[in-house]
C-alpha cells in the first residue's frame, strides 16, 4: 500500500490528491500544509478583502470531504527532505516515509526591499490570514500605500479603497503594467483607477517606510515626497517557495523546480506542480513559470496520475500538455482576459522581468515572451474595450481582451487548438475596427467546419 506525500494544500496539491485517491483507492495519502485552513480559493482572498465574500465561504472543501476521501491533512511544515531515502521531516517533530512525494509549495510574495519593511503595518498578500490581517489593520487606518504593478497590487488598491481608505498606488514605471499592456490599455485602466479617487503615482520609487513607535507613519519617495499612511501593502512579485530544495543540489532547478513532461523532478520519486514548478511550454519551447490557478490545477492532476504509476513501479504514463496560460480578472470594474503569448510591448520592462527572479501572481512568463521576427500583433480599441491578438506561423498564439469579453471563449479555443488562420492573415494584419468582426468570422468558420 503506497504512501503518497503531498506538500502543500493549494490548487496543485489538492488536485493531485483527488486524482491519487481516484486512481489508487487503497493508497495512503498525507497532505502537509503550513496553512491553518482547509483548501480555500487563493484567488478569492482578493474578493474577501473587497468585502464581497466572507472568509469562511472561500473554503472549497470541507472536513467531510477530507474524511470521505481519506486524505490525511496535517497542519505542519516539512522542514527537510531526504529524497534518496524518501523521508520528510516535520517541524512538529517526527518523520514521514513516502513512496512518492509532490512538492506543491506554491509561491510567496517578495519581501519589501526597502528600509522600514519590518514595521508593523507593512504587509504582503499571500494567504487568507494575510487578508484577515490587512482587514484588521485597515479598520484603524485612514490612508494606505500600495506598492506594485501586477494583478495583486491592483486588487489591494481596489480592496483598500472599498474599505474606505485613501489609497496611494505607487508605480515604478510611467504607466500601469507596462510589460503586459500597451500604452492604450494602461491608459484605460488608469482612468478607471482615478475615477474611483485612488491616487496614482508614476515613477514612484520607495526610499523607506518611516515609522513611529514601531508603527507605519509614512512612506518616503525618491522624489522627496512623503505620503502619510498607516498601512503599506507590497505586491512587487512572487517567487517559488524553494526552501525545501535549497540544500538539495540533486534537485535541478532554475527559477522554480525543473520538471519533465510527467512533472517529475530530477529525482523520479519527487514530483513538483503548481507555482513552484517550471514546466516546458509548447508555445515558446522554454521552461516557464506560470503563477496561475488553472495551470496549478492541471499540473496537479497530471502529477497525481504519474505519482500513482511510479508508486506502483511503472513508468509514468500521463504526459502533461501545457495549455495556453490563461487568466481572467476583474480590475476596477473592467474585465481582463489574457491567453497565451501576446508579446511584450516594452522591451526594457520585459527584460527586467526576465532578469528579476519573480513575476506577479496571476501572470505567466509566456504572455510577454517576445515574438519571433515572423510574428505580428493586431489590435482594436473601442471605448474601454480592447481586443489584441498575437499571430505567428499562421496561428493565433495569444489574445488579450479588456472590457467586452464577447470574444474571450472563441479566442481561447482558437489559440488552444492552434487553429490555422493563415487565410485571414492579411485581414488580421490590418487590425483596427474590423478586427473583432474578422475574429468573429474566423470563429464562425471554424465552428461550422469543426468535426463534432
Amino acid at each position, binding site marked *: 500500500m503506497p504512501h503518497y506525500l503531498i506538500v502543500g494544500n493549494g490548487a496543485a496539491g489538492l488536485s493531485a490528491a483527488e486524482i491519487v485517491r481516484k486512481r489508487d483507492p487503497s493508497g495512503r495519502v498525507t497532505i502537509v500544509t503550513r496553512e491553518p485552513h482547509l483548501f480555500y*480559493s*487563493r*484567488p*478569492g482572498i482578493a*474578493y474577501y478583502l473587497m468585502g*464581497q*465574500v*466572507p472568509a469562511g*465561504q*472561500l*473554503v*472549497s472543501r470541507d472536513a467531510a470531504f477530507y474524511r470521505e476521501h481519506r486524505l490525511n491533512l496535517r497542519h505542519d511544515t516539512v522542514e527537510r527532505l531526504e529524497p534518496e531515502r524518501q523521508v520528510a521531516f516535520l517541524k512538529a517533530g517526527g518523520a514521514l516515509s513516502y513512496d512518492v512525494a509532490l512538492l506543491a509549495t506554491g509561491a510567496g510574495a517578495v519581501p519589501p526591499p526597502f528600509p522600514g519593511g519590518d514595521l508593523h503595518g507593512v504587509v504582503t498578500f499571500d494567504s487568507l490570514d494575510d487578508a484577515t490581517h490587512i482587514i484588521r489593520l485597515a479598520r484603524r487606518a485612514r490612508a494606505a500605500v500600495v506598492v506594485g504593478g501586477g494583478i495583486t497590487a491592483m486588487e489591494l488598491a481596489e480592496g483598500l479603497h472599498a474599505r474606505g481608505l485613501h489609497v496611494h498606488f505607487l508605480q515604478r514605471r510611467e504607466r500601469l503594467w507596462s510589460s503586459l499592456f500597451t500604452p492604450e490599455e494602461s491608459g484605460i485602466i488608469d482612468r478607471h483607477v482615478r475615477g474611483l479617487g485612488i491616487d496614482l503615482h508614476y515613477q514612484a520609487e520607495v526610499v523607506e517606510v518611516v515609522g513611529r513607535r514601531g508603527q507605519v507613519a509614512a512612506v518616503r519617495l525618491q522624489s522627496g515626497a512623503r505620503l502619510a499612511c498607516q498601512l503599506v501593502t507590497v505586491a512587487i512579485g512572487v517567487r517559488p517557495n524553494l526552501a525545501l530544495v535549497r540544500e538539495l543540489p540533486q534537485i535541478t532547478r532554475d527559477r522554480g523546480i525543473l520538471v519533465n513532461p510527467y512533472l517529475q523532478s530530477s529525482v523520479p520519486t519527487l514530483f513538483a506542480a503548481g507555482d513552484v514548478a517550471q514546466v516546458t511550454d509548447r508555445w515558446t519551447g522554454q521552461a516557464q513559470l506560470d503563477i496561475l*490557478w*488553472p495551470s496549478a490545477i492541471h499540473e496537479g492532476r497530471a502529477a497525481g496520475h504519474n505519482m500513482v504509476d511510479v508508486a506502483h513501479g511503472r513508468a509514468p504514463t500521463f504526459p502533461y500538455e501545457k495549455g495556453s496560460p*490563461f487568466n*481572467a*480578472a*476583474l480590475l476596477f470594474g473592467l*474585465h481582463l*482576459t489574457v491567453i497565451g503569448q501576446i508579446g511584450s510591448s516594452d522591451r526594457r520592462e520585459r527584460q527586467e522581468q526576465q532578469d528579476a527572479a519573480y513575476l506577479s501572481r496571476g501572470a505567466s512568463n509566456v504572455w510577454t515572451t517576445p515574438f519571433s521576427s515572423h510574428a505580428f500583433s493586431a489590435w482594436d480599441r473601442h471605448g474601454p474595450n480592447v481586443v489584441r491578438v498575437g499571430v505567428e506561423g499562421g496561428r493565433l498564439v495569444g489574445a488579450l481582451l479588456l472590457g467586452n*469579453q*464577447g470574444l*474571450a*471563449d*472563441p479566442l*481561447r*479555443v482558437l489559440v488552444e487548438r492552434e487553429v490555422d488562420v493563415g487565410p485571414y492573415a492579411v485581414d488580421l494584419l490590418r487590425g483596427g475596427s474590423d478586427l473583432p468582426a474578422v475574429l468573429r468570422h474566423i470563429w464562425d468558420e471554424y*465552428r461550422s467546419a*469543426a468535426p*463534432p
Partner: protein
Amino acid sequence: MLIIQKLRALFQSEPQPAYDVPQGALDGLLQVTGDATRCVQCGICGYNCPVGIEVRQYARRGQNVTDPRCIACGACVEKCPRGTLRWGPAILVRDDNRLEVNPHALPDSLQLESAT
C-alpha cells in the same frame, strides 16, 4: 427522437458565450452553466444564491447547475467576478456523447423518453 437530434446538432459545437444568445430566443431552455477554466472556487456564486445552492461545486467542474431548487434568478451569473457562470443551453452533450438534461429547465411539451 427527432427533437433530440435537432438539439444535438444545435449544441454539439463549442458552448456559446451568453451574449451570443439573443434575449429570450431560447426561453425555457436556458440554464446556468459553469466554465471550469475560469472558476477559481471563490464561492461568491453560492454566497449570493437565494436558495442556498452550492453553485461552486457545479461551476468548478464546468457543469450545468442542475439542482432542482434553482429558480434561475441569475444572481450567481451577475456576481461572479470571473465570468465563470453564464446562461447556457439546458441540454448539454457531454464528452461521452450522452445528453445532460435538467428536466426542470425544459418546457413540458418536450418528451425525452427516447434520449438514450
